[in-house]
């Protein structure tokens, strides 16, 4: 077994354990911390694949910005443990098998059609960040500009939604 494979399995196990912990934890703040574990593990996997810029953005934007926003909201709302309510019979007995079936179906479909693309990368090669930036500002410049508009709309929407009503 070579080193990249071992690193992959360690990070993959970390991600899956984090995701399972997200489901099982009762308190939302514990779920948020589990999700941070998943995101850091995924950033490690991106590095393993040579996508260094995506790994950095994953840590900065997801682990840094979005999860801090989540933790802030949990603290702001003083969210406690979630109250248990009974599931319907269908959810109780059909839920888990159906979820497993969905996962299996997705994995089978992606592996079958992903088999055509074989890994042709030289080991340890990094994606060229300058090529990435050139593409972002030439080929994808219109989607990129639209993105700034989207963020503007999101900022205004968040402000309008969260402000206190004037009485």
């Amino acid at each position: 077994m070579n080193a990249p494979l071992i690193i992959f399995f360690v990070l993959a196990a970390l991600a899956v354990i984090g995701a399972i912990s997200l489901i099982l934890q009762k308190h939302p703040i514990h779920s948020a911390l589990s999700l941070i574990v998943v995101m850091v593990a995924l950033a490690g996997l991106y590095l393993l694949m040579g996508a260094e810029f995506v790994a950095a953005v994953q840590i900065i934007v997801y682990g840094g910005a979005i999860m801090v926003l989540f933790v802030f909201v949990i603290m702001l709302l003083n969210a406690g443990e979630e109250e248990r309510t009974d599931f319907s019979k269908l959810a109780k007995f059909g839920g888990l098998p159906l979820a497993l079936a969905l996962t299996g179906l997705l994995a089978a479909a992606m592996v079958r059609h992903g088999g055509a693309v074989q890994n042709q990368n030289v080991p340890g090669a990094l994606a060229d960040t300058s090529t990435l930036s050139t593409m972002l500002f030439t080929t994808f410049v219109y989607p990129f500009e639209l993105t700034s508009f989207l963020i503007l709309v999101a900022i205004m929407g968040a402000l309008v939604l969260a402000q206190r009503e004037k009485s």
Partner: protein
Amino acid sequence: MVPTQYYLILSAILFGLGVVAFVFRRNIITIFMSIELMLNAVNLSFVAFSQAMPEKPPQIAGSLLQVGHKLDGQIFVLFVIVVAAAEAAVGLGIIILTARNRQSLNVERVDLLKL
């Protein structure tokens, strides 16, 4: 070298776990976090496909389909992350609003459009 299939299987597992969390959890914040988990799973398969793509993709003869660049997948991931950030800002605003109006974070108690 790690085969691309391994990444795809991991991505499917994470997506499935995200769906399970989305359906089984009752807390609106945790449900929102499971959406982020599913977005992350999709990002993983985008990067895996981008990495698996050859440097010079073979043009299929007679096909009008434009063959993309190797790094297209990583650009898509960047856009997905931006959309996720915007979605988190608006969604958490909505969560604060509902929590303030109903004094509860349980989605089963949010069953009326109008108070």
